[in-house]
């Protein structure tokens, strides 16, 4: 292969990486200034101990996470766009966020969700965050259970904050940030079944799949147009390159799958199957559903035979409430409406979760609906966020 072709190939790949990493040619290759913050300089609101230069957090706070903060003197955030953070033993069930206060609004706490790095050190380019500006007076790290896929009470494991560092603008900082995004540890979310990439929150870096596609396309063009070797040899080179790119992407996905699976194993592997079905991220909804079924029985009703209207704060919670109530004869209110709920229709039950209190008139024992209509009702559960009403004439359901 001619030397010029090799140089052209390397140049094309470097140019593409530069474009995809969004590197500015006007920045220096290395950071000119660094602002080092030792882990021991942070304070945990609970459960933290100084361990050499690091801060070891051995127990969770009341939110099953930890908040580690310290004051800083950053006159202009724009001078320090790259944050490097070093954690050790951060469990796959925990997520990470940067929290900070600005001098111009000290009562406001701002947050930036951080990607958990593969290896010890992660980087984030804060110049892409609109709120990262002006003087910064305090920074910290919030560590908290992964939302949606991890039950909070099983999430926490001890970890160490070894330190953090701010960098002035540089190619190295940008490449480190993109590397963290491309190789970071991810967790399952509801979105994971639909699209991988958007399932991990905001997408902060351009697609490595597209980078490889374009790189391979240019490689193919250069090889076919300018190589003097036989088509068979070119075909072999292309096949090997495509295979390597595919394997690289698959290695990345396999590691990501392994991270997600590690969280699943940490939470569920020690449990029996009935226990697993009780340990859910929305265990409060499950508990509410069990209370409703018991209350219906106490009222002399068969939960699986009486009409039970269900409403909640969101489509998701409503649907989960319905699932946890199964095999009850539920009907989501957004599907059925109030339909034929009249005194003649017999007894109907109505359960709400995380909803503003319905207009229940205890004195008159009536439930007043939005459209000026009211129904005779009796409150069976009044334990916010859960409420349960029996609507209709008294007597056997």
């Amino acid at each position, binding site marked *: 292969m001619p030397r010029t072709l090799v140089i052209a190939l390397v140049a094309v790949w470097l140019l593409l990486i530069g474009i995809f990493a969004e590197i500015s040619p006007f920045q220096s290759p290395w950071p000119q200034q660094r602002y080092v913050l030792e882990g021991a300089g942070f304070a945990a609101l609970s459960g933290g101990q100084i361990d050499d230069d690091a801060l070891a957090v051995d127990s969770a706070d009341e939110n099953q996470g930890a908040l580690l903060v310290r004051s800083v003197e950053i006159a202009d955030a724009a001078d320090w766009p790259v944050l490097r953070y070093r954690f050790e033993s951060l469990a796959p069930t925990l997520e990470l966020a940067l929290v900070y206060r600005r001098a111009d609004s000290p009562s406001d706490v701002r947050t930036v969700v951080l990607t958990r790095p593969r290896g010890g050190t992660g980087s984030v380019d804060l110049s892409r965050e609109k709120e990262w500006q002006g003087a910064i007076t305090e920074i910290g790290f919030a560590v908290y259970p992964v939302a949606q896929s991890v039950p909070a009470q099983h999430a926490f494991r001890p970890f160490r904050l070894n330190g953090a560092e701010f960098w002035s603008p540089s190619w190295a900082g940008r490449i480190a940030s993109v590397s963290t995004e491309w190789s970071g540890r991810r967790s*399952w979310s*509801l*979105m*994971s*079944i*639909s*699209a*991988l*990439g*958007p399932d991990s929150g905001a997408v902060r870096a351009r*697609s490595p*799949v*597209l980078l*490889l*596609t374009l790189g*391979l*396309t240019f490689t*193919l063009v250069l090889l076919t147009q300018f190589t003097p070797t036989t088509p*068979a*040899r070119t*075909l*072999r080179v292309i*096949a090997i390159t*495509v295979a390597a*790119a*595919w394997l690289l*992407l*698959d290695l990345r*996905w*396999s590691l*990501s*799958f392994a991270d*997600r*699976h590690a969280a*699943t*194993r940490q939470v569920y*592997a020690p449990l029996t*199957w*009935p226990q*697993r*079905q009780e*340990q859910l991220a929305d265990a409060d909804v499950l508990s509410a559903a069990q209370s409703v079924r018991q209350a219906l029985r106490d009222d002399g009703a068969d939960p*699986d035979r*009486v009409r039970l209207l269900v409403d909640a704060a969101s489509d*998701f919670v409503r*649907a*989960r409430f*319905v*699932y946890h109530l*199964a*095999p009850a*004869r*539920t*009907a*989501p209110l957004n*599907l*059925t409406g109030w*339909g*034929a709920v009249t005194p003649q*229709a017999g007894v109907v039950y109505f359960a709400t979760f995380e909803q503003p209190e319905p207009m229940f008139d205890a004195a008159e024992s009536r439930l007043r609906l939005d459209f000026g209509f009211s129904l005779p009702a009796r409150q069976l559960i009044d334990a916010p966020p859960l409420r349960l009403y029996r609507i209709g004439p008294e007597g056997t359901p």
Partner: protein
Amino acid sequence: MSAGLLLGLLCSFALGAALWLAIAGWPRRAGDRLAAIGYSLLLGMLGSGLLVGLQRAVPGDRIFLATLPVLGAVGAALLGLAYWRSRRIVSPVAAPPAEASLPRWSWLLLALIALRFAFVLDEAVLRPVFAWDAWNAWSLKAKTWFGLGQVPYLEPVAWWQSADSAAHTALAWRYPGLLSRVELWLAGAAGAWNEGAVATAWPLLWLALVAGCAGQWMALGVSRLGSLILAFMLASLPLLSVHAGLAGYADLWVSAALTFAVLAWLRWLQDGDRSQLLLALCCAALLPLLKFEGAIWALLLVGLAMLVQVPARWRWVGLGVAALLALAVVLVSWFLHLPWLALVAETISGATTSGSEVSRIAAAVAFFNGLFGQNNWHLLWPLLVACLIWQRKRLRQREIGLLALLLGGGLAALFCLFVFTPAAKWAASETATNRLVLHWVPLALSLLALLLRDVQWPGRRPDASPR
């Protein structure tokens, strides 16, 4: 895994294997053996679900024992048919040629497939049903049926009017019930509403898809090594693994049934083997029972298959007749108030969507980003496009051209749905497009396999192994 669940899975596999034997006979070639494993798992599990549907009054804790005799009888009948078939159709007895051994490094690919299977199986078994539609649509019915027997799910007005205290309703009241019945069957075999036990079906289906595809590719003339490489590529696709690990969605089932139907049809076109046509019909017939989109894909496949059989000079007439038939189906569905028509009308009119309008360009960008930019499919789509350009002359071969046409039609239908209708909101929010694209992904790899089937790779001798 409990003994009951293992027995239930074995019964399902045995039922599927009996069906394969009755239709296609004893698999003698390596490709057929692999295909038989894949098809048996799919057909067996769905067949078990169909048989469970015959026992509507029986609650879940007794459904396994109640269904077992029926399953045994059907299995025995199929085996009898297989025996009769083997006596009637005498296969040419020829010693199979010596099988070309795979290079040593290729076993690494098998090991990687096995490793991925172990991961997805463990994930599926350990994690309680997680993804949204899994519990909102399919498991809700199955869990209810496990407790009460297969009570009817009615549309909301009928539910209010019904005096039947067993009548239920739900957001997914009009979704087909077959998948929920498969879940019911497995829960029944496990002896309790055990979500981990129910979820085992998805990794097994994933394995069936990989095995079935590899087998059919070999039977269609792809070399053993080529089939193994493509099987690894299929198994490595991230969103496919997600659907196996986060068990509960219908899309993997639709994908498997559609792929198996099309590959068997292609084999019939290539070899004239009628048993493959029968297998194709079986798989295609299951599609509408899985999900609404399955009915559309089945119509697309059957329509194309029928059109191919019409003599060239009658094709325009055939198209006209097909259009008239489609119109008649729509009119009859409208007259009978069939739910699928309401679903289509609501989707196209935007009645089931909410939120702000989305521009067509944004929806199109989101659609293509799902194929080429996100982490869903590795390099599958760019690789397919490149191979289509490179091997464009092979599109004139009948099987390859038809597969390309079918795949193009399916993707074009999805593109129109997600760009030119109010369903664009689902494309922009990236919540639906890739899941529907998943239905076509194994066929995209199949097209890749056929395009590269006859390429002379440097350093490789032609494969003389039995297919």
